[in-house]
């Protein structure tokens, strides 16, 4: 009986060690992949046109979906907060509470999740298809550095576009919150804006924008890595896309917690009140 239990514990332990090792190894190779791609982007030929082309896809083509999501997030969040605060007679604080939540957490996280699903998935699928159709091999044998040409511009484009998209999300979400609070539940418009102005500082918005940039880096690196190393035909492309998007989303949510703490610590070290 005891020996069987010991064997199970041993088996579980081995499984845990194996999984943890493979996770650490994978994170290591993803980071090396990102380092390699970014290092190569500093050597000629510089791929400005490619960066702009990918910015158009990641940024411009995401504006509508980000605006739509932002609007309804603002509406729903402010309504829930209004209902809660009404119970404690604190409806005047709905505006600043929504604004803090949107600018520091929901803005960057939801923007990250939406763009990771839309653009990250497309990146993984595109690169995966290029791999299985031998287009990446064709680039290699043509003497084109594939990481420099295919990966680095996508990473740069995501890092540049994500804060911009997050700012759009924040703005539209606050419009949604304003519409609900002022037009639908009849809160005083002057109090709504005044409370926001007295509570929200530019550092709160910056915190969200920094997070958005980091999330852009994370999903671009993960999804391009998955796509770049796709194997096994159409099935492989599907798996690469799926794994790329899922891993990006999980990493965005996990990283958000650590980034929040890190930024808070940084602000405290600089003597800024949080």
């Amino acid at each position, binding site marked *: 009986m005891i020996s069987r239990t010991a064997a199970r514990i041993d088996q579980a332990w081995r499984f845990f060690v194996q999984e943890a090792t493979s996770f650490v190894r994978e994170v290591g190779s993803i980071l090396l992949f990102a380092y390699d791609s970014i290092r190569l982007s500093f050597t000629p*030929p510089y791929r400005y046109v490619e960066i702009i082309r990918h910015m158009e896809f990641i940024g411009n083509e995401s504006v509508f979906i980000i605006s739509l999501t932002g609007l309804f997030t603002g509406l729903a969040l402010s309504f829930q907060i209004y209902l809660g605060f009404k119970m404690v007679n604190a409806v005047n604080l709905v505006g600043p509470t929504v604004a803090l939540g949107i600018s520091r957490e929901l803005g960057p996280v939801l923007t990250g999740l939406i763009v990771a699903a839309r653009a990250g998935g497309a990146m993984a699928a595109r690169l995966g298809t290029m791999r299985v159709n031998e287009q990446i*091999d*064709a680039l290699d044998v043509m003497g084109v550095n594939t990481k420099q040409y295919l990966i680095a511009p996508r990473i740069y484009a995501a890092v540049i576009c994500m804060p911009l998209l997050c700012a759009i999300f924040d703005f539209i979400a606050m419009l949604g919150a304003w519409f609900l609070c002022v037009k639908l539940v009849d809160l005083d418009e002057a109090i709504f804006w005044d409370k926001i102005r007295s509570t929200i500082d530019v550092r709160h918005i910056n915190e969200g924008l920094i997070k958005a940039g980091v999330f852009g880096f994370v999903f671009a690196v993960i999804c391009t890595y998955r796509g770049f190393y796709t194997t096994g035909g159409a099935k492989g492309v599907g798996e690469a896309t799926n794994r790329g998007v899922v891993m990006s989303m999980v990493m965005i949510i996990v990283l958000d917690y650590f980034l929040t703490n890190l930024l808070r610590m940084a602000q405290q070290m600089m003597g800024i009140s949080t």
Partner: protein
Amino acid sequence: MTYTGKAAIRLVDVKKTFDGKEYVVNGMNLEIPKGSLTAIIGFSGTGKSVILKHILGLYKPTSGLVEVLGKNIVDMNADELTKFRRNFGVLFQGAALFDDMTVLENVCFPLVEHRKELTESQMIEIATKKLKQVGLDPKHFEKLPSQISGGMQKRTGLARALALDPEILFYDEPTTGLDPILTEMVDNLILETHKHREGITSVMVSHDLDAAFRIADYVAMLDAGKVLLFGKPEVFFNTDIELVKRFVAKGMKRQ
């Protein structure tokens, strides 16, 4: 670069294992003469594609020497290899055209990457010339790869491979999956392209024995990761090696 040695490609005791146990390439020795059209044939799983990837520098051997145009590519770092590969042109099995570029843009692509001294109109002129050389009608130049037939895609892929006037042209299973008429067209295209450029070395990895014996100057048959027989096509019809005799008899009968 212009290489004047006799062998364009030289493999010396090349071994390759992916898992540390089984050798996919097991002590391969092969010399491909400069200026020749050489076909590499063999049963599935004998290491044909793996050896092509070694020559292209996409794989590093576990041991052995891979010398291309007099240079040992095994010791080259990634940047050196990237530059060296400009001497290669490759026609892939599926043509591997970039699907978001037109036919003309596909052929211009290597020029845009490596011939920056050229103006846009000069690049278009060269690309047009290469496309005409492989017999593609100009009315297809502005089409996307998805809008042209498989045969036209092969022609475009070949024109792209020729764009930088490479020293060595590789064909990876160029006729696999094509119908007999298209197969003959591609075979003739390979032969014409080889004759058209003096001094070019062509290497074709193929299952198509008929084409290999009809158009190649030399044929190398692989088995179990080694060269079983190398020589002019007639050598294959007068050999005593049982496996070669069976392979040739079955291959020719099927075609």
